[in-house]
């Protein structure tokens, strides 16, 4: 089964931006993940970022529930950086800084770094243009990914 690393914007569009022009194709992609047709992964940084964006609209109890249930809700596995514990995550300063030198924002660099260190070959994001030139691995939008599967 194909494994993909999913960026925060895919989840955010589904949860918050139903009027976005890409909502339907985004939904089609996420349904494949939720139904186990493709194996979805994201990182603990992405999960914290998504919780942060939703924190404007959910109360503290709801955010906690959402955070701890996220892997089950979207049928995804969460990738933690090497050497991290349940309480702390580690950032590889050297690798992250080398991505920052390629003009990436801090969180983009941290996320790309954890993706590059994983065995997953494909990064799925609606910001594909921001990542394509920064990594040798495959970066696709959900639409491009579905086209590659002839599902769109």
């Amino acid at each position, binding site marked *: 089964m194909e494994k993909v690393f999913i960026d*925060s*914007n895919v989840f*955010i*569009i589904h*949860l*918050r*931006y139903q009027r*976005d022009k890409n909502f339907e194709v985004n939904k089609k992609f996420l349904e494949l993940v*939720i139904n186990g047709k493709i194996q979805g992964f994201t990182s*603990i940084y992405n999960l914290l*970022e998504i919780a*942060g*964006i*939703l924190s*404007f*609209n*959910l109360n503290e109890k*709801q955010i*906690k*529930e*959402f*955070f*701890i*249930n996220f*892997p*089950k*809700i*979207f*049928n*995804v*596995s*969460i990738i*933690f950086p090497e050497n991290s514990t*349940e*309480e702390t995550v580690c950032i590889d300063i050297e690798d992250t800084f080398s991505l920052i030198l390629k003009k990436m*924002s*801090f*969180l*983009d660099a941290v996320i790309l770094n954890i993706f590059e260190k994983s065995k997953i070959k494909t990064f799925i994001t*609606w*910001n594909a243009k921001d990542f394509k030139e920064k990594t040798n691995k495959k970066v696709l939008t959900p639409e491009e990914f579905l086209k590659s599967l002839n599902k769109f």
Partner: protein
Amino acid sequence: MPVISMRIDEKLLKKLDELSKKTGKKRSQIIKDILRKELKEEKELTYYLEQMKKGKKTGNLDLETVEKWLSNTKPEFEKWEEAIKYSRQRTK
């Protein structure tokens, strides 16, 4: 049983006394209850993070419930690009 003393600002102390009057509990009991609740929640979060690290997908919340929670709220940002830009501190 060990005894601890603590400093507390007047505003918070006033709220503590109001809560004490409302619930009929002593100040110390309220503080102990809050501490127990915090410790329980922290333990719960640690448990779920351990499960996540092991690749387990536990819990009982579904997507429909989250969508329902969000359905009556307006996103803080008009477009998803703005939300992501906000969290990633992009300048361009």
